[in-house]
């Protein structure tokens, strides 16, 4: 799981163009939106895209992502359980 968390952090940095941040700057248990990393609704769409492109996971709606994108750890848990590639 720790390996997947690191992989996700790197993919998030790349997809959201957080160029001056490193994986260590992201707390895997902190909220991704609002108070934590400060992401917004457009980022949620980019994260949905990230899951589809890299792990073959298609979310039906952004609302579904609310639970999954709570933190990098919840994302990693969902990817580990549902990935098709």
């Amino acid at each position, binding site marked *: 799981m720790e390996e997947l968390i690191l992989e996700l952090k790197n993919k998030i940095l790349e997809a959201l163009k957080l*160029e001056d941040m490193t994986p260590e700057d992201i707390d895997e248990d902190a909220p991704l939106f609002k108070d934590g990393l400060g992401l917004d609704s457009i980022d949620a769409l980019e994260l949905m*895209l990230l899951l*589809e*492109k890299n792990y073959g996971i298609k979310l039906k709606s952004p609302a579904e992502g609310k639970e999954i994108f709570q933190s990098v750890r919840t994302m990693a848990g969902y990817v580990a359980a549902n990935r098709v590639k």
Partner: protein
Amino acid sequence: MNRKVYIRAAAQISVQEPLCEDWMLHPRQLSGSFLHCIDPDYKQFFSPMQARRMGLMFKRAMVTSRKVLEASGVECPDAIITGTAFGCIENTERFLDPLCRGGEETLSPTAFMQSTHNTIGSMVAITLGCHGYNCTYSQDGVSFESTLLDAVLQLECGGAENVLAGVHDEITDNVARLMEANESAGYPLSEGSVAMLLAAGDGVPDALCEVSDVRILSRPEAVEEAVAGYRAEYVMRNDVTFSLFGRCGSASGLAVYAAAEMIAAGRYSSVLVVNESGSNAGFVFLKIV
């Protein structure tokens, strides 16, 4: 109601030294087939979180816009009017390339949103919190003249007291290759951003110059007659403009910026910028305040 219109401040990012007028003493001699802008260090202007979704063209537009607003002491303009000949090419390619390669799946929403021509004008408005009139003109080589004409009309008619007008264009390697194959005008292809703060009134003493006339003529045969009618002290044509800034959709905007600064420096009392672009010709006549 016909009020006089003035350029209070102007700023550029182009192939010359950006965000200053020092380059006018020793302009860079242009060479090569195409040139990118000389960009300032944008980390001075944007935090990483702010900058992450900004393409280069938006960064240039935002930095030049902020500079003219600061120079004019205007926090938020009454209107934002923007010109662009080709729009946001970088984001359009970023959106279209995966679409072609990936079979219309997994497309980036950010690149899609920011691929439209009015992205720049709307993003500047969102950033400044400007809810006023907002319009983008994409009229090939006379996009800037179309922008300026609308700005002058808004100001003359009292629709706005001040207008943030700009013209912004960028070039990518792909577009440069395509354009080079079709054109060989002797000047490098280029890109550039210009922002101007225009104001109306009976007198704006700190203005760079007055915008006396803006015209777009669609009769190439009538250009010389029109030029003679203005009786300008100096006529700035495409050959001078292109030798300073290269060939780009923003070229006439850059020429007007340079002309305004030359008038403000006392080099001329009036300048006519003539921009012959295909079957259209743009005329911007500037006078000393």
